[in-house]
Structures are given as structure tokens and as C-alpha cells.
């Protein structure tokens, strides 16, 4: 069956992107991104991971037209990134954003909404919806200057969503946020995925990327070193995992023996562990009660 046009056009298409920057010393060129290609289809959640200075943010900025590619091409839903109309369908949350401190949360969303052509009742309705979505209704009239780091990230995510974009670009969305705030942002990303919104994010927190992304690219020194479906990338093909509940030591012995007789070997047995983050969230939630 043929897919409709809108679904066959990639949400993000980066082809052989190269970006050189002049360094102040002797005007030598520094290659920040070297031949990176990324293709993200509508509805996918794509995580770009890599060490500091590997070219993640530059790739995102090139996609948003904030820097011009030295070579290569970037497009959003088929529209050239350097053209303003490509930004109609994009929401962007930069790393460590600081919004206008003199505005309240609601005023901030109103400002960005108006920039996107929203007005009147539709704008007010959208502001209300977004504040509810990011759980900031209680702080709608408080000045942004008094917001915590987590609240800033959430209002940042809300402004990114103000014009109902089909693509959301998030640069380190949970940087500097405590585990509870981090979890809220992650839940919001999962909500976006459920709504069919394409998400392109970069993060240092690999566990979070693993939890929300279905496609991952690993970038290092400006080059894409590995890319693909997350499940394909992290599964160990020659091993199988069985998790049992209430298994007796005898049963484990029998399974070990059975595996040995069938020519397989038992690599490891033990108790599955929760993550430190889950433990933290459980304990701090109880403390609140």
C-alpha cells in the first residue's frame, strides 16, 4: 500500500552535512561536523548521542538554520532548513535555555504563540493547554526569573510546542534537572511520541535516550560512527534472556543442565536490579507522602 505523501517525506533529512568554523588563532578551520547524514521519518523518536564537542548541537543548529552548512543539505519535511518556512513545523528547546525573566510563564507562551501567528481565544486556549501539559498551571503568573531549572526546561518544552509542530528538536532536555524533573520531561517526550510527533533529541544521559528513543545515532569527532534502530544496536544476537519469578535453586539447576545438554551455556544468573534513578524516585515520592 502506498503511504500518503506526508508520511513518505522524512521529517528530518540531513545529507552529508559538513560544518567548518574559523578558529580565532591563524584563522585555521575547525571541522565540527564531518559528512553526517540522518534521516528521521514522521513519528520516530531519534536520539543523537556523543561526547562533548562531538558536533551534536552544531548538527541541530544547522537543521534549524542557525548555522549555514559548509557542505551538504538539511531539510525539514522536505523544506530547505535555510528557508524560514521550514520552521513552521518545528519546535526547538535549546540546551540550558533562559527565557525572558521579566515575563511570566503564561506571557512567555503568549509571546511565542503570537510569533507563530496565534491570537485571540485560540492563543489563550493553547497557553492553558500547554501549561497543563507541562504541569505549570500553578506558576502561570509567576515571573520566569523565579522558576527552578526543571520548571525552565518544562516551560521551554511548552514554548517549543506552542504552534503544534510536527517535529520537536530537544538539545539536552534534561541537562541540570533533578531526577524528578528529568522524569517529568521524559514522560512528556513519551506523550509526544504517543501523539505521533517526531522528536529529535540529543542527550548525554544514555539511559534516558534508551528509554524514549526508537532510533539512535552515535556521533564522535563530527562523524557518525553508528546509527540504526535502538533494539538492533543494543541486542546481543547470540544470547537470550529469560526472567523468571519465584524460581527455586533446583529449577535453575535443571535449566542449566538442560542448556548444557542442548549445546548452550549459561552465561549468568542473578537478581535483576532496579536502577538508582527508580530507587531515588520511589524513595523521594514516599518522602513527599
Amino acid at each position, binding site marked *: 500500500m502506498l503511504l500518503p505523501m506526508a508520511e513518505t517525506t522524512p521529517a528530518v533529512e540531513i545529507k552529508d552535512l559538513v560544518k567548518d568554523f574559523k578558529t580565532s588563532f591563524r584563522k585555521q578551520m575547525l571541522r565540527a561536523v564531518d559528512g553526517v547524514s540522518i534521516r528521521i521519518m514522521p513519528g520516530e523518536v531519534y536520539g543523537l548521542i556523543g561526547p562533548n564537542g562531538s558536533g551534536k548541537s552544531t548538527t541541530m543548529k544547522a537543521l534549524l538554520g542557525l548555522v549555514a552548512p559548509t557542505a551538504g543539505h538539511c531539510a525539514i519535511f522536505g523544506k530547505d532548513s535555510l528557508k524560514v518556512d521550514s520552521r513552521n513545523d518545528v519546535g526547538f528547546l535549546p540546551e540550558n*535555555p533562559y527565557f525572558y525573566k521579566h515575563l511570566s510563564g503564561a506571557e512567555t507562551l503568549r509571546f*511565542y504563540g*503570537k510569533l507563530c501567528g496565534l491570537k485571540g481565544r485560540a492563543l489563550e486556549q493553547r497557553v492553558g493547554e500547554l501549561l497543563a501539559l507541562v504541569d505549570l498551571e500553578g506558576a502561570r503568573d509567576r515571573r520566569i526569573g523565579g522558576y527552578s531549572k526543571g520548571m525552565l526546561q518544562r516551560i521551554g518544552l511548552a514554548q517549543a510546542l506552542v504552534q503544534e509542530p510536527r517535529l520537536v528538536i530537544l538539545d539536552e532536555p534534561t541537562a541540570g534537572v533533578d531526577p524528578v524533573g528529568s522524569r517529568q520531561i521524559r514522560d512528556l517526550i513519551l506523550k509526544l511520541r504517543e501523539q505521533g510527533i517526531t522528536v529529535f533529541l540529543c542527550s548525554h544521559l544514555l539511559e534516558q535516550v534508551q528509554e524514549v528513543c526508537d532510533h539512535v545515532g552515535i556521533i564522535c569527532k563530527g562523524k557518525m560512527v553508528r546509527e540504526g534502530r535502538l533494539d538492533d544496536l543494543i541486542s546481543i544476537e547470540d544470547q537470550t534472556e529469560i526472567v523468571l519469578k519465584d524460581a527455586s535453586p533446583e529449577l535453575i539447576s535443571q535449566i542449566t543442565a538442560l542448556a548444557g545438554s542442548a549445546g548452550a551455556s549459561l552465561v549468568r544468573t542473578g537478581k535483576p536490579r532496579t536502577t538508582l534513578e527508580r530507587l531515588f524516585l520511589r524513595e523521594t515520592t514516599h518522602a513527599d507522602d
Partner: protein
Amino acid sequence: MSNTTMISRGSHVSRIWVIALHAFTQLVRMKVFYFLAVFAVIAIASNFFDLPQHEGPESVGVNVLRSIKSWSLGTMTLFSVVLSIVATALLLPKDVEDRTLYTILAKPVPRMDYLAGKLLGVLLLVFVSLALMDVLMTAVLQIRTSMVMEQQLEMARAMDWPQDAIESLRAETLAQGPSWSLQGAVFAVFLRASVMASLALLISTFSTSTLFTTIISFLIYFIGHFQADARDVYLQAGQAGEGVFARLASLLISLVLPDFQNFNVIDAVIEGQAMPLLVLGKLTLIGLYYAVFFTVASWFIFAEKEF
């Protein structure tokens, strides 16, 4: 189909207006209007400044009125130029530093709309500030003119002046009071501040700091007061000014660097002379030329800028 395609994206004008109103609000919430209190003190205090007297007693009242206008317009010039340079120099680097610029340019906002909006916001602030100062100056001047007129007429009658001399004194005193020419002078102050704001905008598109933009803008402001004299001296200095190249260079300088001596008509208004409409029209065209020239030049640089 996505909902987004159904949303009206807004026109350039509406986007510029949104950014302008925001820049205006931002500056107002920085409490810049506190300087109006200083202006009020100066406007009232200028009633009591003693000027050196070389004329007869009939000129005392008129000199007080001149003093009010002189101090008020001088303070307006100072505040409006400082406000236009500092506010413009502050807005752009602050947006880059706080990364709010990323979130704005990541929306469907052309860079020209952003620049024009910021400039318009500063101009709106300068206009409102000047309007408020103008109201205060006119009120003080009106009250003082009535008082001076009463004193002058009383003095003239006591000295048995002939009727035509009294009428002449009345006309002279009225010419120093509030007039349309005075409003024209305030508008000229606004035009000069607009030129400076657009110049500061141009510098801030390639400068790396607010301090650099502010210093260079003030430097050009001072050069602007002397560049016409400097060009005249150069062109009249023997053979140097006779060549075609020298004349072209001089023309180029006057096209790029604003000649603020054009705004000296304000001094004539302080002296009580009328400002012809033609002069005001010429000033408006000069102001518009420089403001548009600097804004378009800012756009050329800003359009290619990487963040």
C-alpha cells in the same frame, strides 16, 4: 493534515509589532522610566537657574523661559541618545547570551522581522519617554510664560511704555513660550535618537559586547557633530580638496556618517525662532534615510550571522 497548516502564520507587520511590544515591555520592566523623575527635577529647577544678565530688566523673564527650554531640550537629548544607544546595545547580545534568540529564530521569524521589531521597540520607548518629558516641559513652560507675561506687562505699565512697545514685549514673551516649533524641536530630538538607535543596532550585529557597541556608538555620535566642519576644512585646504576623489570620499562619508549639525535648528527654537515646516520635513527625510540605511546594513550582516 496537521493543525499547524491551518494556523495563520501572521504577517511581517504583526510579527514585528509583537517583537517591538515585547522589547518595549522588557525595557519598561527594567525601570528605565525612573529617569523621568530626574527630568522633572531639572525642568522645575531650570526656573531658578541664574543666567548672566547683560540686558535690561524686561529681558529677565524671557531668559528664564529660554533657560527652561534649553535645559529641558538638552536633558531630552541626553536621555534619548543614552537610552537609544544603551537599550539597543543591550537587547541583541542579551538574547544571544541567554539563548532566547535561538528559540525566536527557530520559529518562523525572518531575521529582518526580529531586527526591525527590536529597533521599533526601542524607538517606541524613546518616543513615549520624549512625549512624557514634552508634556512636563510644556506644562512648566506654559505656567511660567503666564507668570512672566503678567510681570512684564505690570512692569511696562508702571514704566508708562507706549502701547506698541507693550504689544512688542507681549509678542516677544509669547514667542518664548510653548509653540508648534517647540514640538518640532522635540520631534527633531526623537529623529536624532532614532538615527543613533539604528546605528547602535548596526554595530551590535557584529560587535561582541554591549560595552563595545555603546562606546563606538557614542564615538560616532560625537564625530557626527564635527564631521561637516572637518569635511569643509579638508575640501577648502588647498589642492587636497580639489580632486574628484577627495570630493567623492567626502560625499561617501556624509552618506555613511550622520551629520548631526543638521539638528542644530533646535538651538534656534530655544532662542524663540520659528521652525519652518520645510526644515522639519528635511530633517525627517535625513533621519529616515540614516535609520533605513543603518537598519538595512544591520540586516545584511545579521542575515549571514551564525549562532
